[in-house]
């Protein structure tokens, strides 16, 4: 297969960037999208040119490191798929793609397709945990949690923090990411003590980082590799006004 690529190249955080055209030759249908880019990069390196910078690590869709826009959709058009798990057999010979980094004020571009997502860490720092010190825990079976509750908490906890939700959102909102953690912890008995402060602090941090608000369009859910549901945001909002009334 031959694939035509238009790729955003940007040398560093504070400089401008532009689209450049590349062609990937001899693409095998068994390649993942990133392996196809690996091949393009091999060619560039051989020519003494700087390869296209993109992030990736586990390459099995769980670490959340990879991700960029493929022709206007985060991680490409396959549902529940990260770019590392997107295989070229889904495409046709001669297809063209535009590759762009996540774009958001809170996710500054570091180079080419690589962005700084440390804002997500800071949102978790604001309250995405239960305050338990090592060693102080009681026997695990002393906390009974119904299977349906545990399953629902797991649905939210599955978030891989890739940032596709922010990238897809017209407001560059981090509501899906933030709400998934709030929902996970608010469902469980372990998360009850800090329930009120958690939601207020995390929302405040989300705003400080420069993310926008949620317009309930659900583009985030549609592009989420883990299919994290928009319902998490409703839960977050409910937790929020309850917390406001309580505080």
């Amino acid at each position: 297969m031959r694939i035509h690529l238009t790729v955003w190249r940007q040398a560093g955080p504070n400089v401008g960037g532009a689209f450049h055209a590349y062609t990937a030759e001899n693409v095998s249908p068994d390649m993942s999208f990133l392996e196809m880019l690996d091949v393009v990069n091999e060619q560039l390196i051989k020519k003494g040119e700087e390869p296209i910078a993109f992030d990736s690590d586990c390459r099995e869709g769980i670490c959340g490191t990879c991700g960029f826009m493929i022709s206007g959709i985060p991680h490409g058009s396959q549902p529940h798929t990260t770019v590392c798990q997107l295989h070229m057999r889904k495409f046709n010979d001669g297809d063209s793609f535009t590759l762009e980094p996540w774009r958001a004020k809170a996710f500054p571009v570091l180079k080419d397709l690589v962005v700084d997502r440390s804002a997500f860490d800071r949102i978790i720092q604001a309250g995405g945990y239960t305050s338990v010190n090592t060693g102080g825990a009681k026997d695990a079976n002393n906390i009974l949690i119904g299977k349906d509750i545990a399953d629902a908490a797991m649905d939210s906890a599955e978030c891989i923090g890739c940032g596709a939700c922010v990238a897809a959102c017209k407001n560059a909102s981090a509501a899906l990411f933030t709400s998934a953690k709030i929902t996970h912890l608010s469902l469980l008995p372990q998360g009850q003590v800090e329930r009120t402060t958690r939601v207020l602090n995390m929302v405040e941090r989300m705003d400080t980082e420069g993310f926008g608000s949620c317009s309930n369009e659900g583009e985030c859910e549609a592009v989420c590799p883990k299919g994290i549901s928009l319902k998490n945001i409703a839960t977050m909002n409910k937790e929020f006004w309850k917390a406001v009334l309580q505080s």
Partner: protein
Amino acid sequence: MRALRMLGSSVGTKIILAFTGLALFGFLIVHLYGNLLAFLGPASYNEHAHELISNPLIIPAELGLVALFLTHIVKAIGNFGKNRSARPQAYGVKKWAGGPSRKSLASTTMIFSGLAVLLFVVIHLKLFKYGPVYTDAVTGNRDLFRLLLDDFHKPGYVVGYVLAMLIIGLHLRHGISSATQSLGIVPESWTMQVLRGGMALAMLMAILFAIIPIAVYFGVIR
């Protein structure tokens, strides 16, 4: 203190927008009831109007309504600005994701449909509430029914009004379900029903509002 400050947060803003939006939607339903009385003839229509106008609570109610409107508008504009600045550099290529996404013409144009509705409300108030005053010879009350007939025999008014109702419908199409989602008041298993219900309700509202000028124009209401 913190509670007040948090109302200015992104989530707080959305909750206020949802709350005021739903309240305004409630007002629209009451308003629609009054409009539909036109089908029963001038007596019912004018009597209902008179009851409203002569009620001593009308002033505080109107002030409340103005407050709702202003809050909704001010918050929406501020929110729009913040959201714009959250993505300073636009994408070269951006597509809708499809699948479970609810993105629609309505959802992407809320600020514009909202501003269009504002413009309509101003014109509407000027032409109707603060428009020519006819008096009913029998009751001595204001004859708004006559004004209704006057206005909607002009084709331009009919077209303008129907267009405005379509825009309101568009705004509500996303607004109703989005507001319930923002408030988080719907049980999770009901999300889809609320979404579809919201759309149906929006369409129904727009049709029922728009049907009156058409009915007047074609002489069904006279």
